[in-house]
């Protein structure tokens, strides 16, 4: 045979397919890391807002603070996180409290938010 024969189309396609599948799998594994971090941060944010709501409910209607921010010892474990607390009148004897944590996951353009609301009434409430 004077000239070596080249690769057939099938061979080239199979090679590209194999390499492509491997790279895709690697990409998926790396991407799952980012998803895991996001879900962990969501869990932390959720426990921060639940803790705040619980302490506001326990404090009762008379001790509700004005709108603003609130403090939490775990807030520094979220990347560039801020907290907001909004207290508004729902009706004459009820206030609507909305507690949010906003943070910025690395490598994402938009910031993430976890927000919970509750109604706190003048009478009744937690023992």
């Amino acid at each position, binding site marked *: 045979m004077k000239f070596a024969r080249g690769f057939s189309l099938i061979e080239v396609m199979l090679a590209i397919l194999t390499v492509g599948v491997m790279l895709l799998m690697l990409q998926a594994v*790396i991407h799952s*890391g980012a998803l895991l971090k996001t879900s962990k941060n969501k869990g932390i944010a959720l426990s921060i807002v639940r803790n705040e709501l619980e302490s506001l409910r326990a404090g009762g209607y008379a001790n509700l603070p004005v709108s603003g921010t609130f403090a939490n010892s775990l807030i520094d474990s979220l990347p560039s996180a801020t907290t907001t607390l909004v207290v508004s009148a729902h009706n004459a004897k009820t206030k609507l409290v909305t507690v949010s944590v906003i943070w910025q996951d690395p490598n994402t353009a938009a910031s993430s938010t976890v927000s919970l609301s509750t109604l706190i009434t003048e009478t009744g409430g937690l023992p």
Partner: protein
Amino acid sequence: MKRAFTLIESLIVVAISVSVMITIALLIYSFNKTSGYGQMFAQSSGSASAILREVESLAFPADAVLATHTFAGATYTSTSTSLVLEIPSINGSGNVIANIYDYAVFYVVGTTTAYRLLEAHPFSHRTSGTKQLSSTVNALTFSYNDADFTKVSTVTVDIQTQALVREDIVSDHRREQIRLRNY
């Protein structure tokens, strides 16, 4: 007669095979490393959430933190590392059955494994049993709003989980206060 390979040809083949093998090995290595890390990461933060949800699900309906209670022979005491709860029993529709109680305890065995033991009254709709909540606990701390357990209405749960993946440490920290709704 067939022509043999020249030196150059064999060298090129060897070089290509080596670089392909190195690429594949690197791919497999990073694949393993990333997935192992991901697994431990999910376990550490997932189990922190699991402990928190489980404590919530039993402490919200509880009416008291007990200083001590005997579960089928074994006695557990409420301390900074274990929590014993008395929970009014419920029927199939979720309504409280008067004067009968279920008992639950959260505790850590060794230094890393957290369990929940629930002892339900025979009439209760809850299911008795022991459940492993986490195997990556670093510190599980309960604090109470009163030194006298009969006056405790709020429990603060602080969970730190930690897992070692090769040379990396993955950890998580959660803290939440829970008010007994039936106190």
